[in-house]
């Protein structure tokens, strides 16, 4: 191959930018594609912090404990080798971010400060106030801007990935992308691509995710032959603010700094929260999980809140809400949470420093994703994936503050691996499949533009979100999952009868959205069918009809492939080469 391989990175969040930095540093050239200016990527929303076992609090923490907490927290579904590697690199990654100028909180001695997060007993989470994702994203964005100004990186911001260009042997030779202003659709050559396009919250309608988190790119690749793994594992975060247009996250750091979750002991208690005495409050997490208290892993906390609201009927004022209370915290702890307190204040109107917040679980994170090997390569040669878009690391449930670490780790592996692959890649034959793929994408565009149906794409999306939230989040029943799949099939059928109210070819956001919608629908089927097949409960996947984990049958990675316009499933053994699976329970008292 050419002396200077060309790599395309799709997505400019933490994972994408990390990959770009490694490639640029190694002398490669990168084209970076992002729907939004990369500084506005969804990583910016991460709040609480990033985990690394630096043990600066004298607690005897170690990378092996971080490794064990992550595997145990993920209910043993994650392949252990990459998790071990990630946790081992954690401290060096934190040091690097610190050197890049991330304004991490400090101790009086000037060292990095750490806070506690869910699913661990150690203070392992480095943080910058309660806007850590923003600060990390900016630090990487700044480094990439530096490489850009030196000519090593070309940004294509405002371009959307549509598909990979595959040659006659099935290897990736570039991408097709669409300029979201001019609506021009064209191909870009590459010797390898790295897909870092985040999660798929939009499939659930309302979630804590950003607007761009549709899973569209992952779905397009799945429809081109990539395996999509563990799609059924969706994290519902215990503490979000229910909202009109989205569910806004209230970081786990609120509990890490001492926040407590409670409801009135008497469901008919009409007093305002502050006037309810301690003895009349039910701190159900602390009661049920004395050792971890409010910092049980997210799947556990979410189910507990769900149980209190729907089984005990104890939601505040009969509504699906519980209190997240920070009003007792000293000012110095409140100060470390200002970023999220402002969000609550602005969107709800109450001051959470004075009044307990009202929260409820909300769809938050996509544990599943594109299947990758330990070098972050998908089963399509030359297509790599990293960050939330891939399935590795988090197993059946992600621990708080592990996502930022996994993004950077994944990008740091994918970048050099893609570069090495590209250097060894033989020259393409003919045009490498560019003309054919461009033609296919243009036909898809033309079909939409010439469609004269009656279906509004945003209505179809709303119905998709409603059925996914109802049947495929906290509690899952097989009958409901079947119903959801049938609903998606119906929506796919109605999609053929779409009506684009805007057919112009300039900055047509509803056209771009309608293209994403098709991919959301196809990926929705992967999620519900994967959940249907998994007759057990593991991590975030919970079926009351099958309440136990079943390692014999289901200690396996779910792999979906697109066959005959529908998902086909196979299962793969999980790498348990380091830690023997053991029952997962957080109810211990000591």
């Amino acid at each position, binding site marked *: 191959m050419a002396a200077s391989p060309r790599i395309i990175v799709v997505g400019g969040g933490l994972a994408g930018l990390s990959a770009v*930095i*490694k490639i640029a540093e190694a002398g490669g050239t990168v084209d970076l594609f992002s729907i*939004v*200016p990369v*500084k*506005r*990527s*969804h990583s*910016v*929303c991460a709040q609480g912090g990033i985990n690394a076992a630096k043990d600066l609090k004298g607690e005897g923490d170690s990378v092996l404990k971080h490794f064990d907490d992550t595997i145990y927290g993920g209910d043993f579904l994650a392949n252990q080798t990459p998790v071990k590697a990630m946790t081992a690199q954690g401290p*060096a990654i934190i*040091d*690097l971010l*610190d*050197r*890049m*100028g991330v*304004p991490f*909180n*400090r*101790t*009086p*001695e*000037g*060292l990095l400060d750490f806070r506690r997060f869910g699913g661990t007993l150690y203070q392992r989470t480095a943080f*910058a106030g309660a806007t850590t994702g*923003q*600060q990390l994203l*900016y*630090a990487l964005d*700044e*480094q990439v*801007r*530096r490489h*850009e100004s030196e000519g090593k990186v070309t940004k294509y911001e405002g371009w959307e990935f549509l598909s990979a260009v595959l040659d006659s042997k099935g290897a990736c030779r570039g991408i097709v992308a669409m300029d979201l*202003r001019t609506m021009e659709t064209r191909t870009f050559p590459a010797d390898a691509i790295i897909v870092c396009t985040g999660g798929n919250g939009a499939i659930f309608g309302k979630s804590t995710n*950003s*607007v761009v988190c549709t899973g569209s790119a992952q779905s397009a690749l799945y429809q081109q032959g990539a395996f999509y793994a563990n799609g059924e594992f969706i994290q519902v975060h215990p503490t979000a603010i229910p*909202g*009109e*247009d*989205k569910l*806004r*996250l209230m970081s786990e750091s609120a509990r890490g700094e001492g926040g407590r979750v409670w409801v009135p002991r008497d469901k008919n208690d009409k007093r305002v929260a502050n006037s309810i005495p301690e003895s009349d409050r039910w701190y159900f997490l602390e009661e049920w999980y004395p050792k971890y208290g409010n910092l049980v892993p997210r799947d556990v906390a979410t189910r507990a809140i769900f149980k209190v609201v729907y089984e005990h009927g104890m939601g505040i004022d009969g509504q699906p809400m519980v209190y997240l209370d920070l009003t007792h915290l000293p000012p110095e702890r409140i100060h470390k949470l200002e*970023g999220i307190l402002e*969000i609550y204040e*602005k*969107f709800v109107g109450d001051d959470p420093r004075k009044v307990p917040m009202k929260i409820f679980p909300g769809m938050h994170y996509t544990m599943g994703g594109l299947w990758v090997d330990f070098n972050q390569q998908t089963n399509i040669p030359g297509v790599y994936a990293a960050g939330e878009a891939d399935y590795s690391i988090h197993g059946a449930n992600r621990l708080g503050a592990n996502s930022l670490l996994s993004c950077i780790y994944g990008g740091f592996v994918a970048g050099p691996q893609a570069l090495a692959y590209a250097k060894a890649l033989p020259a393409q034959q003919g045009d490498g499949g560019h003309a054919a793929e461009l033609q296919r994408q243009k036909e898809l565009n033309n079909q939409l533009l010439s469609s004269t149906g009656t279906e*509004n794409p*945003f*209505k179809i999306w*709303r119905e998709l979100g409603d059925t996914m939230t109802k049947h495929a989040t906290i509690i899952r029943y097989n009958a409901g999952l079947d119903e959801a799949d049938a609903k998606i099939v119906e929506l796919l059928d109605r999609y053929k009868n779409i009506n684009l*109210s*805007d057919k*112009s070819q*300039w*900055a*047509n*956001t*509803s056209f771009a959205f309608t293209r994403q919608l098709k991919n959301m629908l196809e990926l929705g089927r992967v999620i519900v069918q994967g959940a249907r097949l998994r007759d057990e409960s593991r991590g975030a996947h919970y079926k009351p009809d099958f309440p136990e984990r079943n390692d014999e049958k289901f200690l396996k990675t779910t792999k979906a492939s697109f066959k005959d316009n529908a998902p086909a499933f196979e299962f793969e053994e999980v790498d348990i080469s380091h830690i023997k699976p053991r029952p997962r329970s957080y109810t211990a008292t000591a």
Partner: protein
Amino acid sequence: MPSTIKVEIKRQSTPDAPATTEKFEIPYRPGMNITSLLGEIALNPVDVTGKPTTPVTYDSNCLEEICGSCAMLINGKATMACSALVDKLTGPNKDQTITLAPLSKFPVVRDLAVDRSVLFENLKKVKAWVPIDGSYDLGAGPRQHPQIQEQRYPLSNCISCTICMEVCPQFNDATGFVGAATIAQTKLFNMDPSGSVLKEERLRALAGDGGIQECGFAQNCVQACPKQLPLTEAISDMGRDVFIQQVKDFFTR
């Protein structure tokens, strides 16, 4: 209380097309913000007279005022659309019309979406980064007192929304002023123990035409900033540092 919200939106189909105003009446729901209101129009793109129209183009992403995408003029004021709550915009009787328009100091792309890439170009000019040796493991960074972090963190909260530039009387084609956001980032990186190695280059980039001297001390920026950045303090500090640098350069270069 009225059951609908009246909205007037300034629209423009392309950068060169004439601007028009479209009126809508949207069903009211409690807790709506401007982005959910625009979402309602996409669900049913019909104006107040029942005439079919197109969904409105606007920039948005996080919907929680941290990505900086959705800045626009709401009732004439530069505001983030996601955190602009409808209930606070319709007056005491909840019956006033809400007006939406694109930011006025940036080229319109379409409807409420504008091109703000000038800010990212300005950040290149002042080298708003720490020039690290490499991303390999070089051990821990320099120790930093909490007081330094306390000063740097607020500056690092800039979401690049460009509202400070929109409201600045000096930010226009005649002055070529870089604007408050870029100056604040200069201070942020000059304060970093490693980032300060580029301090002099940054200060020189802020000297001269379009630089910090263009600031007219209107102080609109600090009042409008949705993240409450200490912008005027940063401008004042950098103004002093630029001046000192110019004096030094005069004698040594």
